[in-house]
């Protein structure tokens, strides 16, 4: 198994982990953290593809590498915008879950089919 395959599998696992956090955390900021994990997993998949394309004396295919750099900067901008939305939500509503109804009680929210 090459390092590209190893870290590619690592990226796949990160996408799965992040997706799980995205679904299971009610807090918007936690969802955002989880989404950043999904993003870095996707970037790592790009990294594995870039590493496999090493040729002509380069350590990796520079085209996917450049795309990842672009992606990292755009991901930061999107995260900053989302963080501002979360902070605004917390100021306006005093809470950061995305439940449209105010919580009737403080225990665990009931499961919803949707």
């Amino acid at each position: 198994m090459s390092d590209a395959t190893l870290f590619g599998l690592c990226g796949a696992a990160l996408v799965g982990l992040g997706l799980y956090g995205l679904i299971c955390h009610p807090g918007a900021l936690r969802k955002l953290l989880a989404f950043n994990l999904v993003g870095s997993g996707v970037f790592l998949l790009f990294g594995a593809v870039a590493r496999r394309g090493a040729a002509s004396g380069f350590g990796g295919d520079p085209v996917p590498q450049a795309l990842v750099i672009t992606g990292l900067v755009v991901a930061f901008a999107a995260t900053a915008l989302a963080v501002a939305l979360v902070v605004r939500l917390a100021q306006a509503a005093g809470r950061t879950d995305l439940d449209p109804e105010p919580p009737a009680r403080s225990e665990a929210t009931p499961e919803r089919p949707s």
Partner: protein
Amino acid sequence: MSLPAPVDLGLAALVLGLAGWVITTSATYRAAEGFVAYGLVLALVWVRLGSVDVALTEAALGSGLTGLLLLRAAARLPADDPAETTRPGPGVRVVAAVLCTAVAGALAAVVLLLPEPAPSLAPAVAANLSATGVGNPVTGVLLAFRAVDTLGESIVLVLALVGLWSLAPDDAWGGRPGFLRGPAAASPLRFLAQVLPPFGILVGIHLLWIGADHPGGKFQGATVLAAMWVLVLVAGLRQPPRVTSRPMRGLAVFGSLVFVGIGTAGAWLAGAFLAYPEGLAKPLILSIETALMLSVAVILGLLLAGPPEPDDAAGVRS
């Protein structure tokens, strides 16, 4: 089948462990702390994958600035937020776990079944890199072969800033960004904010300059410059500019305007939008990089500084 190097196995285990910590830990602030460490280890993974350019960006931007953003946001969340304690029931968790495992498994299958020999644009880049005058293939891709991506990205950054500012309440418009303001900083932090920026600015310019031939470039340099500005703001040595400040707005769009200007000139002089006239490629690329670095640094700093807040809010928030 050969085994990967032990250091690679260790790094992969560390990355997955830290990601698991970010997902499973109970408090949001701790999860954000874990995310910073996760980003730093991920930067080492990028070094192992032979991509030092991405590693620099991940360490500075993905771990450093994103971590700061998330930590500041976590510290501002309401203490009695119901989202901190509620969790979905076991049924939802099991279904989610099964679905996410399926997604991860499908992606893993894709990784294992990637075509052999691997398709690569590296030979094409190597064959044409000399025409751009730069020696770093990633810089060549970012500023010459796929310059349109970079142009789009610089405009996305401006739009993100517009979106962020538009979240301000009406009475806050014209105020100063509020995320980084707080109680007076402790004296060690003020000392650091006085000593470090000259070195940081030097490192940022160095990263831009060597980015032509070695790992580095405008994004990495801009991130370091933005970090220095943010350090000064967090320490309270300077106030962020008002959102209505015209010099600052001009600086934020300066890079994109230079990029569009040189790109449009290329339509006449070199026959295509974003094409460079022969022999002038390197000076033009360096001009775009310098202008973009300034603008990206300003925008990254302003994105971290958050939307404007009314003036009377300054200093009273705990």
